[in-house]
C-alpha cells in the first residue's frame, strides 16, 4: 500500500461508517476516472480491462451518465 496508514479503531460504528464512506468515495472516483478516460478517447474495452470488470458492466454503469454529460462515446464494437 502507499503511504496511507489505516488506524486501528475499536469503535464498530466508526469502522462500519468508514466502509460506507470509502465505497462512496470509490464510486465518485470511478465516475470521474471513467469520464476522464472516455473523454481522452479510451474504448469501453480498455476501460473495462483497466477496472477489471466486463465491458458490459462498465457500459451499463456509465454510458447513460456520460451521454447526459455530453461525452462523445465510441460505438460499442
Amino acid at each position, binding site marked *: 500500500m502507499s503511504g496511507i496508514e489505516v488506524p486501528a479503531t475499536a469503535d464498530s460504528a*466508526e469502522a462500519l461508517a468508514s466502509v*460506507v464512506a*470509502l465505497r462512496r468515495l470509490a*464510486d465518485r472516483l470511478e465516475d470521474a476516472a471513467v469520464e476522464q478516460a472516455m473523454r481522452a478517447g479510451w474504448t469501453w474495452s480498455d476501460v473495462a480491462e483497466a477496472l477489471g470488470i466486463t465491458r458490459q458492466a462498465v457500459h451499463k454503469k456509465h454510458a447513460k451518465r456520460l451521454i447526459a454529460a455530453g461525452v462523445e462515446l465510441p460505438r460499442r464494437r
Partner: protein
Amino acid sequence: MSQEFGTYVKAVMERAADEAQRAGAAAIEAEHLLLAMAAEPESTTRRLLDSAGLDHRAIRDALDEEFRRSLSAAGVIVDDRELPPPSRSPRRPSRIGASGKLVLERGVAAVAHKKDLRPAHLLLGVLRLNAGTVPRALALAGVDRNDLTARVRRSLPGEAGQR
C-alpha cells in the same frame, strides 16, 4: 392513514428523489428523505427541524462532515476542492433504499392506529435510526435526538395513544 400524512410522504419522496439523483445515488436513502423534509414547506416538521438548527444547508454540511470524518477514520484525508463532485444520476431514482425503508417503517410504527399518522411521524422515523450516516451526521450537528424526539412527540395530537 391520514390524508395529510399520505400527501406529505408523497411530496417528500418526490423531493428526496431529486436529492438522490443530485447525489448520484441509485436509491432514495434516509439522508435524502431528511434533506427533502428540510426543504418541504409543510410547517410543523420544518419548524421542528429549524428548532434544532437543522435547515437544508446545515444538514448538507453535517452529512459532508460525516463523510470526511468516516474517511479519516480509515486514514483517508480528503480535500473537498480536489475531490470530484458526485456525478448526477442519469435517471431519477424511484427505488427506496434500505435506510429509507427503515425511516418509513419506524415512523409508521410510532402510532397504534395508522389514522393517527401525521407528517411529523416521518421525522420521528428519521430520529429512530440508531446507526449509519444520518444519526452520525445529526450527532455531528450537535442535535440531541432524545430532546428533538420529545419535541416532535409533544407537537403531535393524541400523544397518550402513541407507542
